[in-house]
């Protein structure tokens, strides 16, 4: 061991999440929670609807987090957060950060109405969607965040999903909220930095966090961080932020994009795809990336 070298941690040391939780091995959503709490600190209230995290946290009467949580109805992450913020302010607490923490189903599908409402009102909340690209908690059913080509239990191989993923970031940008960021569990320093930036901003802030799910993606648990990193490096899930719905900044500029095939081939959910299918995915990723570069 290098005796002389000092260890410098690149993330805040404080842990507000303790082990013993119920996440599957290699869960990306759990890493996302750990990083977010490191960025926001203990004076944070979480509103968690039905999603994997409703279970991961632990059953009544336990919780693995040292921050207060309101477990809310599936479609109410945003409206619950709105109520918490108003309730805290009316009882004299104007400092606490209120976070809606929902999965892709709770955000892209059933919760989009309440989210749109809160964003249009510019309610003072941070909304985080940890995206594992399907209803994983109920057993891997497709959501509107499921990408083209993926197998799920409701998009079987013979009828794999033939529509692209909904562009939730564009939808949120259309609301002209002060801050939107994408983040990935493979880039926690970037995630923490942007979350700290968001904490200092007033109004609705939206995070789209890429969170691999070995159980649902039929990938190896040890590949979770690697998959997330590949998705950033091949522009499948680029890291960027949008301020006031307009100013786009790419956080990680890619000199050379990796091919999406490397990413696709590591996941059982895409095993049935032909070279032609993968080429179509590559074309779609290239087109999205070109659009993003143009918008900067």
């Amino acid at each position, binding site marked *: 061991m290098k005796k002389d070298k000092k260890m410098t941690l690149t993330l805040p040391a404080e842990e507000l999440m303790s082990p013993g939780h119920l996440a599957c091995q290699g869960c990306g959503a759990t890493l996302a929670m750990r990083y977010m709490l490191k960025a926001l600190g203990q004076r944070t209230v979480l509103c968690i609807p039905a999603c994997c995290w409703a279970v991961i946290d632990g059953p009544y009467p336990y919780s693995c987090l040292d921050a*207060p949580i309101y477990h809310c109805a599936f479609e109410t992450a945003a409206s619950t957060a709105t*109520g918490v913020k108003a*309730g805290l302010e*009316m009882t004299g607490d104007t400092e606490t950060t209120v976070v809606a923490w929902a999965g892709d189903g709770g955000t892209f599908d059933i919760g989009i109405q309440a989210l749109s409402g809160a964003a249009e009102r510019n309610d003072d909340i941070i909304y985080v969607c940890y995206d594992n690209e399907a209803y994983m908690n109920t057993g891997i059913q497709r959501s509107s965040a499921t990408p083209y080509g993926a197998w799920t239990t409701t998009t079987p191989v013979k009828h794999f999903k033939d529509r692209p993923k909904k562009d939730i970031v564009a939808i949120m940008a259309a609301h002209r909220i002060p801050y939107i960021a994408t983040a990935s569990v493979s880039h926690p320093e970037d995630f923490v930095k942007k979350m700290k930036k968001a904490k200092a901003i007033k109004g609705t802030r939206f995070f789209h966090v890429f969170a691999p799910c070995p159980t649902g993606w039929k990938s190896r648990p040890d590949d979770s961080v690697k998959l997330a990193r590949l998705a950033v490096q091949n522009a499948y899930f680029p890291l960027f932020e949008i301020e006031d719905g307009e100013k786009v900044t790419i956080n990680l500029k890619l000199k050379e994009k990796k091919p999406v095939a490397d990413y696709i081939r590591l996941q059982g959910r895409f095993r049935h795809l032909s070279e032609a299918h993968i080429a179509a995915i590559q074309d779609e990723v290239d087109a999205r990336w070109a659009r993003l570069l143009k918008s900067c």
Partner: protein
Amino acid sequence: MKKVIMGNHALSYGAMLSRAQVIPAYPITPQTQVVELLSEMCASKTLDAKFIKVESEHSAMASCISASAAGARTFTATSAQGLALMHEMLHWASGGRHPVVLGNINRAMAPGWSIWTDQNDSLSERDTGWMQFYCSSNQEVLDSVIQAYKVGEALMIPAMVILDAFALSHTYEVVEIPEQDKVDAFLPPFKPEIRLTPDDPHAFGGLTGPEHYFELRYKLQKDMEKAPALIEGTGLEFERLFGRRLGLVDEYKCGDADLLFVSSGTAGYTANVAVDLLRDEGIKAGNLRMRVVRPFPFETVRRILGKAKKAAVVDRNISYGHHGIFYQEVKSALYGVKKAPPVFGYITGLGGRDITPDTFKEIAAHALAKDGPDEEIVWIGVKR
């Protein structure tokens, strides 16, 4: 101070005097004036509250619940379709033990679109664990909001204050607006023992297995069972301060009645008028107006109806495939009561069709002509 106000504004004044702190609301006919006035009160700082213009009733109740969890007193109002959209969250409010107060304007459910009154909207939410107060005057609406907070917060159970569309919501009556300091004395600030705060972090409402869920629901029922006495108690306290009684039921000439109407809402007031007209004709009628339906006032109903010779339950609602809902409830309360009177069930006034003193006279003529009911539903006023 006396004011001539509409029923909807009586709800607004009730919420204002109760110092509601968070008011998430969504408009629906015939509720709109409730939230219009509240939004004005918030804008002009007459009321120190956050008015949140949510995008649906479902979100309105979700925001009420979480604001209540954070320790704020919350209010919202809705009607019919809006209440139905809230249904999931109504269970959430009671199961989470959040004493939200909701004003509901009784309106018939679509289709066809109806904006007129009947009780099927609120009675469809009978089993959600909310207290339900049915009102017959604007004064009672205002007073009931204040009482609902008092009782609800003591038990950590939410409450609905219910009034008929148009017959009350848009009808102007003289209402005594109580003085703020007297209301403050009656209703202290909401200070829940446990609240959502980083100072004492808890996870609320987590996954609850079969080993614990049952006990939590047992506790809710046990607390609901305490509500009748508490409603009577707070009603007496209210009377001492404000001179108006707020009990579980409203009795009108019940003591010597040969025929007792069981009524609710504005029809409960019309029934009193009919009682007087019938008595002018020499018929000893009386009226038991049900003010509180959840918790159901078993003892009071048994005591009063146990002495009656005949009872005619008037329902402005129906449980399809069963009978009128109040009729079922009254019969179940009287089960096993010795010398219980014959109970007749009448359905009338659905979708806002008028209930007049003549309606009650027709009911009286029907009930008095028979020894006991020969059918479970007697329809009054339906075109057949």
